[in-house]
């Protein structure tokens, strides 16, 4: 039987939206994400013999993609660190320019997380993997995934300044939270 026959192509095609979502969440850049997806598809196709039939194709593809991403990151670590440093500085100077927790702030904060924490958060919190599956994709212990997820959540909360009422704007969606935190008192 030809393992490269139609069903495989269909299965891969069907998983591309999921892979792209993972890649974009992981690297925060659509172009780079699509390059990662392309590389993942090529590697998967060319190394299909190492995929055990009957196991989880999605998890296998996610593993290839994250391995590709992290070796890519190691290769250009210097460059990435410089860029992250600049982004961190920007975030520190202009936290929540809109005065509330908007999507752009969230994306920015997500991109500032250490990649291993972002990966764990996305796998478990968005892609729907169990801690066990996420651990197998990332090649680490389940406890490591749990602690990365927790650190990611804490970090996001810190970066977005959502522990303190003064960083919420007065819009209706956050008003209730402000009221509950500070008894309605708005800081100057």
């Amino acid at each position, binding site marked *: 039987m*030809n393992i*490269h026959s*139609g069903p495989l*192509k269909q299965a*891969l*095609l069907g998983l*591309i*939206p*999921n892979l*792209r*979502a*993972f890649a*974009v*969440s992981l690297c925060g850049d*659509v172009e780079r994400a*699509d390059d990662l*997806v*392309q590389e993942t*598809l*090529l590697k998967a*196709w060319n190394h299909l013999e190492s995929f055990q039939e009957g196991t989880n194709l999605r998890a296998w593809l996610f593993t290839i993609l994250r391995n590709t991403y992290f070796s890519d990151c190691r290769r250009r670590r210097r460059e990435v660190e410089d860029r992250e440093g600049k982004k*961190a500085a920007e975030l520190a100077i202009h936290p929540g320019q809109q005065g509330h*927790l908007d*999507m752009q702030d*969230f*994306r920015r904060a*997500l991109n500032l997380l*250490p990649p291993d*924490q972002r990966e764990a*958060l*996305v796998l*478990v*919190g*968005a*892609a*729907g993997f*169990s*801690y066990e599956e996420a651990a197998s994709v990332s090649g680490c212990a389940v*406890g490591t995934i*749990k*602690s990365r*997820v*927790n*650190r990611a*959540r*804490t*970090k*996001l*909360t*810190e970066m*977005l300044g*959502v*522990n*303190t009422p003064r960083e919420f704007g007065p819009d209706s969606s956050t008003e209730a*939270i402000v009221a*509950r*935190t500070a008894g309605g008192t708005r800081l100057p």
Partner: protein
Amino acid sequence: MNGKNGFPGPASPGEAQMKGDGGGGRRLRSAASKRHIAGADADTKMENRPDMQRAPRHDSQAPGMIDRSLQAQLGRQLRAIFEGIEEEPVPERFVRLLEALEAREKQR
């Protein structure tokens, strides 16, 4: 999916103990307010340290009302980003790539 809103819940009590942080909800609030006073004490300096690997101080706490609703909000935003991309049509380049791979395979 973990937790009611799909956003992963806090560490189990066992894991929290391993991190050696037994603080209560009080600590979360005090740490948060202290963060704004530069150099108030050694604790504050720890909070500001850009060392990503340290164990966060309020990891082990049972999240209060505010924390839960914020975590739910963060979870929704994370999934909104993810699902937004998932809903995009598959770019043509991938369709062509798979067709080319399949065609190459058939020629062998």
